[in-house]
């Protein structure tokens, strides 16, 4: 990624954040919301979204303080080399750990919808090869691929959701406040839902490559708003069509919605397969972006001049981890653990770094120096 050859526009940044956030997890999001809040589950999306909207804003503000640097560089200056490296590693780990679980979701979606008996060495292996190649190419190529694929994916998802409104029953999304109590362990099982909102930390790695750094804050917030609105619409549609009982009982409510809105005798009779195919692209965009930023971050952290071979070097580890997540419950638990990292990278660390940066600026300001003299 060379500054002189790449300048990201606001639209590209929005689509990059969406490309990383809209993933396989979106297909299970309505089920999670229904299991947590029942009929009012659709309200959970804007509620959690609001929290991460704040996170997106402080992340963008933090990046704006260091427009010529990535997180890898400015974190070391802010909190010292050891802590800075640790912070960078947390971000890189977050992007890296998304990969096995997303690949595992892809394997499962392929097995349940397209190729029932296709082995993981074929599906995961082939996907990982494509991913490694894609993550090693130029970032501007990657950005443009993301633009094409994520837009197709969003268009298909919107089509499915809009067709679903033929069966929408408003009674299914009420009561808004039922007061049904849930055990804390149940919330933990569904904690992976926060990953639907946490693609925005990538802006901390792309600031030096943006056309107008000041517009990045706005683009980041707009990306989150779009993600929250789309997820709310999607969850509301699924709950309105199935009711919370059926939605909570499904493992893949997004796919079930596509199956439910099949139109008999028309070319769209198997709409679920169209959704599956386009959603594989959503998983692909999430994975190649995450993989790219892992390689990019590591190269910067280790001071490597070339990063193209890093994705190939990491591929065996990704393959091993993805095959270790051998069933729904295991990868769901993985997502719950990953949600801790998501909160760290999306809220805690940006807030901490922003506070340190503002404090340092205040300490270095002339007004403060005069106060010190007095």
């Amino acid at each position, binding site marked *: 990624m060379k500054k002189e050859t790449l300048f990201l526009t606001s639209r590209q940044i929005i689509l990059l954040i969406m490309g990383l956030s809209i993933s396989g997890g979106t297909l299970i999001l309505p089920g999670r919301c229904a299991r947590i809040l029942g009929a009012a589950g659709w309200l959970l999306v804007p509620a959690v979204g609001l929290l991460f909207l704040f996170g997106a804003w402080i992340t963008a503000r933090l990046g704006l303080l260091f427009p010529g640097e990535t997180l890898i560089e400015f974190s070391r200056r802010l909190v010292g080399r050891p802590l800075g490296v640790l912070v960078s590693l947390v971000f890189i780990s977050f992007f890296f750990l998304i990969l096995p679980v997303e690949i595992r979701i892809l394997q499962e979606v392929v097995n349940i919808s397209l190729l*029932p008996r296709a082995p993981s060495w074929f599906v995961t292996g082939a996907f990982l090869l494509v991913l490694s190649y894609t993550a090693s190419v*130029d970032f501007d190529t990657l950005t443009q691929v993301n633009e*094409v694929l994520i837009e197709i994916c969003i268009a298909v998802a919107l089509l499915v959701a809009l067709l679903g409104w033929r069966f929408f029953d408003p009674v299914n999304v*009420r009561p808004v406040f*039922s007061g049904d109590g849930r055990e804390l362990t149940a919330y933990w099982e569904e904690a992976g839902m926060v990953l639907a909102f946490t693609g925005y930390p990538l802006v901390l790695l792309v600031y030096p490559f943006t056309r107008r750094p000041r517009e990045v804050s706005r683009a980041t917030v707009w990306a989150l708003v779009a993600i929250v609105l789309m997820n709310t619409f999607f969850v509301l549609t699924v709950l309105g069509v199935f*009711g919370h009982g*059926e939605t909570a009982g499904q493992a893949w409510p997004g796919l079930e919605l596509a*199956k*439910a809105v099949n139109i008999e005798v028309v070319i769209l009779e198997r709409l679920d397969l169209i959704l599956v195919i386009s959603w594989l*692209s959503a998983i692909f965009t999430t994975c190649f972006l995450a993989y790219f930023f892992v390689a990019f971050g590591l190269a910067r952290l280790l001071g490597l001049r070339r990063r193209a071979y890093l994705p190939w070097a990491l591929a065996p580890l990704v393959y091993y981890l993805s095959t270790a997540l051998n069933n729904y419950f295991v990868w769901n638990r993985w997502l719950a653990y990953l949600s801790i990292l998501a909160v760290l990278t999306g809220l805690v660390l940006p807030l901490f770094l922003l506070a340190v940066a503002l404090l340092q600026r205040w300490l270095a300001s002339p007004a403060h120096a005069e106060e010190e003299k007095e």
Partner: protein
Amino acid sequence: MRKNCSSLILALTFFLLLQTSGCWEGREINERAFVFAVAFDLPETENGAKPEEFTMSVQIPDPSRMAGTQEQGGGTGSGKPFIILGTTTDTVLKGLLQLQREMDRMLFLGHTRLILISEEVAREHGVDQILDYFKRNFQIQRIARIAVVEGKAREILEQMPPIGQEPTTFILNLLSGAGGNSLVYISDLGKYMVQQSTAGLDPVLPRIRKSEDSILTGGAAVLRRGSFAGWLTPLETRGFNILINEFRGSSYQVECPFHPGRTITVEVVQTGAHHRLVRKGEELGLEIHVRGVFETAEFTGDHGPEERLSTELTERVTARILHETRSALAKAQQLKADILGIGKKISADDNKVWREMDWEKEFPRFPVEIKVTMEWAQTVRRLAK
């Protein structure tokens, strides 16, 4: 420009790669046995079947004979365009494995469009237990039709349609309300799954039965706790369809107000039922207001539509609709099955009250008031006799 082009090519290649996935484990069409319909019955007791067992029959089309069916005008030739295989089992998957032993082709349920469950199986085993496999298998479409059979379900599969088409499509058309008389309740696997998992709503499935040499639809099976609870008659089903806003038009005969013994047939073309929870003192109740529009269609008397008929004709049509809707409600309360989703509405509108209710006990005596307002649309083609 070159980079844009290569990006587009990369994206397209990835997208096209996904489309070719069907080649993996490709199976020729003549190596598959497409199961179009499945039927469940209780086994004959003299066969020594265990109580947990049922018989499962699958209908598989025979393409070589299907082509001949049309030529022979509705399958009147010697061979039927399908074969039916049956087995006794205690789970669906075990049954399929047993049937597979008789077939050199792989049984494929991706095109299964019809699931028939006999009344006895629905009562003894429960519809929900039978459908468990179908709910979990991703191959099965949510739009697969389900019906409860009064009598033997396998006999329905064996019946040839009166006009030339394959039998499953014929039954599917019957169950899809193709006649537009609203005497059939239209449902499918997806709808059943939603109803079954919704608190305060009991599922209903269409009824189907075999008469001497034909298949009859009309009426519906009411389910409670996943098992068969009782039947709705065709007229009760029509009333039920009005109450749940799934009415698709139907004709009614009423006596001519001025000529006793003569009938006027009206077409009710449209109805809408508005449900509202009302509280009278301490007691919560439901008010259902049905509004509808009808047209006069046929007169057996010496006159056609006249203005002086309007009031009394409207009253008589209203009374018929009221009677049918009340009958449907009474049957539901008698069977203790909340097929109208009154509980679901209370849960949505007044959740605090809902959580304090023991709905199974309260539903049979829950006060429901039905009001009907009908209107004569007066689209008249001919005034005179």
